[in-house]
């Protein structure tokens, strides 16, 4: 078995809407595979099918060599899942949650204690293990869920928006754990995210998803290379003169005016930066500011979709309000 996950024309339609449209992806054993896309791109639907929660409308897929429809139980035993929304039992302690999971997944009784202590240590929750999880912070619950996903030694760990709604510090922590988990347990990680930096920092390969389709799939650096290069933004007192200097004397054709600045797309921004300033000075143009930006996944996304990936903040805020309402209702 070469690929831990393979999908063939995997499709999920809700009425007339194709949430996932003829998806063909392969995930290599041991990699961190990122599914990146805006809300509603079909990431969660894809994961739900691979986790056997949803049945595909058409197409097939295998996880760890098992068919997601015909061998759903085998697939379930092979995977760990951290859902987008919290899913721990808040009336149970952290340890009890882990023990329940171990029992549901058939971890041998003799190994349960050992494994539970190990994962608790990994996510640094040993001291709070015997407190009810309702007293945990959002970040702690997330860590507990990560720990839980590992107890039965899954081959693949699915993380659906693992850091949504977490503060920056906790996000950093969670990222660290994910990388450590992967190293320590030699598992494959599939994560969905609509955070560019998250996909960039964690993933070995990234699939950019939009409207149910994969529109680009490669390593982060290769994806960035597909862009023309760096972007230099210059502000000067005479932009028109500068534009003609740059296009005619320097031979940089990809330059255009954007509002009150000039944007130049180049291959080797770092070395061109001082030359542009020099040329401007020689031509009596005063450079007010100059900025070099190396492409990020945001640009990649923009390049492929023509849209920026805007985290849907209203939805997130709504989600938080909802969580608070639930907490208050208890």
């Amino acid at each position, binding site marked *: 078995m070469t690929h831990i996950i393979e999908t063939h024309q995997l499709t999920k339609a809700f009425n007339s809407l194709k949430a996932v449209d003829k998806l063909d992806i392969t995930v290599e054993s041991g990699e961190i595979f990122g599914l990146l896309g805006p809300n509603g791109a079909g990431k969660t639907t894809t994961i739900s099918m691979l*986790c*056997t*929660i*949803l049945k595909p409308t058409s197409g097939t897929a295998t996880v760890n060599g098992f068919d997601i429809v015909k061998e759903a*139980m*085998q697939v*379930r*035993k092979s995977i760990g*899942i951290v*859902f987008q*929304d*919290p*899913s*721990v*039992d*808040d*009336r*149970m302690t952290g340890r*009890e949650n882990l*023990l*329940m*999971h171990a*029992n*549901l*997944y*058939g971890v041998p*009784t003799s190994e349960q204690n050992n494994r539970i202590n190990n994962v608790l240590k990994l996510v640094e929750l040993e001291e709070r293990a015997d407190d009810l999880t309702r007293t945990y912070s959002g970040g702690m619950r997330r860590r507990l869920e990560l720990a*839980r996903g590992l107890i039965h030694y899954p081959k693949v760990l699915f993380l659906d928006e693992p850091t949504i709604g977490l503060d920056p510090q906790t996000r950093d922590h969670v990222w660290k754990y994910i990388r450590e988990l992967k190293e320590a347990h030699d598992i494959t990680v599939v994560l969905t995210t609509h955070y560019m930096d998250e996909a960039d920092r964690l993933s070995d390969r990234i699939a950019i998803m939009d409207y149910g389709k994969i529109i680009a799939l490669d390593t982060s650096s290769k994806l960035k290379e597909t862009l023309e290069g760096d972007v230099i933004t210059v502000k000067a007192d005479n932009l028109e003169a500068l534009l003609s200097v740059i296009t005619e004397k320097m031979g940089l054709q990809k330059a255009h005016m954007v509002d009150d600045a000039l944007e130049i797309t180049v291959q080797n921004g770092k070395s061109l930066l001082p030359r542009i300033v020099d040329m401007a000075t020689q031509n009596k143009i005063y450079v007010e500011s100059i900025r070099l930006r190396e492409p990020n996944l945001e640009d990649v996304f923009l390049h492929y979709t023509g849209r920026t990936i805007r985290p849907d903040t209203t939805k997130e805020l709504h989600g938080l309000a909802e969580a608070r309402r*639930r907490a208050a209702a208890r």
Partner: protein
Amino acid sequence: MTELRGFYTLWLREVKRYLRDRVRIVSSFVTPLLWLVIFGTGVRLSLPYPGLNYQQYIFPGIIGQTLLFTSMFMGISVLWDREFGFMKEILVAPISRTWVFLGKMIGDSTDAVIQGIIVFVLGLLLGIKLNIFTFLELLPIMLLVTFGLVSIGLTLASFMGSLEGFGTIQSFINLPLFFLSGALFPLKGASIPNWLQIASRLNPLTYAVDALRNVILGGAWTPFQIQPLWMDLGIVGLFDLIMIIIGTWAFTRMK
């Protein structure tokens, strides 16, 4: 083996959650106490059963009522689990839905029986004549009664998306079943209209209450019983079986 451990862990979860809910346990004293003390002593119904006072008569009925209301209410655990996300953890576990249903159902039944035991103890404190053998005989019977009722609650909840609708359906099912069970007043005899007698005979809780009376009141009830204990239990068991099959099916299609 794996399935049995999954079943056990789900059962244990229901029981632990119940025992940790102090408010629910304390409040479980109140309703039956009101019925037994205020209703049971205030109402002076002329029973067609010589040798039995009204409080004695309704005591098994109040146990039945407690089992009914608690069991039905247990369905709400499905809605809570869905609301708070834990349901997903259960639904993606490599354990068949039959065992998921049985774990939850028997766990909830255990909780309901604990409520029944509390009422039993209340009866002792109120001076109703009871003994340890009655208690031991009552335990499995209470459990048998709750299986079917919990299954109804879980089945209904599995079809429902929100907590809001659950209360309404409760009053559409709980109160009719309760009033038609003969728990509070006899529903047979010449003075009772025919349709009411038929409705009562179609109510599975009627036989549950009759079974409880057969055990608790013993010989004093025998002349008035609807049918012998074994027949009551047969009907309740059959009802359980049907509801468990429906409940398992409902859980299988749950997403």
